[in-house]
């Protein structure tokens, strides 16, 4: 919360990051444990993902209240050779339909990297399968080029 009693704009980035890392199965997550049971022979310990773009649209203020939670809905909107896009919406708990009124929407692009060599790499077969599982044609695809105003 900031001086306006609004959840500060930077924290929306954190909420989306939290949702994204859970979805993508970063170290320590349930998704990662699940995938560890069926190891991908292509995968390397230096595999990682980095965020290269995040575009947050704040629709209505999220006002601090005790015990309040929000849901962050995340889905994949594009899969490339080494990069992919994820859309997020911050909504009231359980309000997940395509027409849900959201507090904010965020459009992100991530790149698969080799953390040691510090360069991008191709997405692994298991990563492609994981990302395809999060494609949701029922949800709007607002990126790219679908927005008004400066880029």
């Amino acid at each position: 919360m900031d001086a306006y009693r609004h959840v500060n704009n930077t924290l929306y980035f954190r909420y989306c990051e939290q949702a994204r890392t859970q979805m993508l199965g970063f170290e320590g997550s349930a998704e990662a444990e699940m995938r560890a049971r069926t190891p991908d022979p292509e995968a390397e310990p230096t595999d990682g993902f980095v965020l290269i773009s995040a575009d947050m649209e704040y629709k209505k203020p999220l006002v601090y209240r005790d015990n309040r939670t929000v849901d962050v809905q995340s889905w994949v909107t594009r899969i490339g050779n080494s990069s992919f896009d994820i859309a997020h919406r911050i909504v009231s708990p359980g309000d997940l339909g395509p027409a849900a009124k959201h507090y904010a929407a965020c459009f992100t692009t991530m790149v698969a990297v080799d953390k040691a060599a510090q360069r991008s790499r191709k997405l692994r077969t298991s990563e492609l399968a994981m990302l395809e599982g999060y494609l949701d044609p029922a949800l709007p695809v607002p990126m790219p080029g679908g927005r008004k105003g400066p880029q």
Partner: protein
Amino acid sequence: MTAPGTVGVKHRTEIQVRWGDQDAYQHVNNVAYAAYLQEARAEMLAAAGVRASAHARHGTFVVARLKVQYLRQLTFRPAPVAVTTWVSAMSPARITLRCEITDPADDGLGPYCTGLTVLVPYDLDEDYPRRVSDEERAALSHFLIPDPS
């Protein structure tokens, strides 16, 4: 104040990277970039004479959009980073800012990130958007560098 038709200046400030701004990749985390841009924005508004104060509830701005393009990794460093902020467009209901984070000594590798921020003038008492006042427009024109069309 800047006369109509002339180009303004960019606001520049330096921000110290904090140890705790790093994440598990030893990169400055994406959320910290947003916080740096926010600090610089508040300084620019104050330098322009536009007070973003919780006490002036009728005359605040809220962030309607923040886009950050992460261009290269920023790691912990003892030297601060430079954050440059300017106004790229003004309309009666919104102010668009552009910003970038660079090495203050200009290491020739280009910005760590570029950012786009849309501010909407907002009346917190009415809980409703307001219009950019003439005073705000005049004050912010000091930092107005319109996008090339």
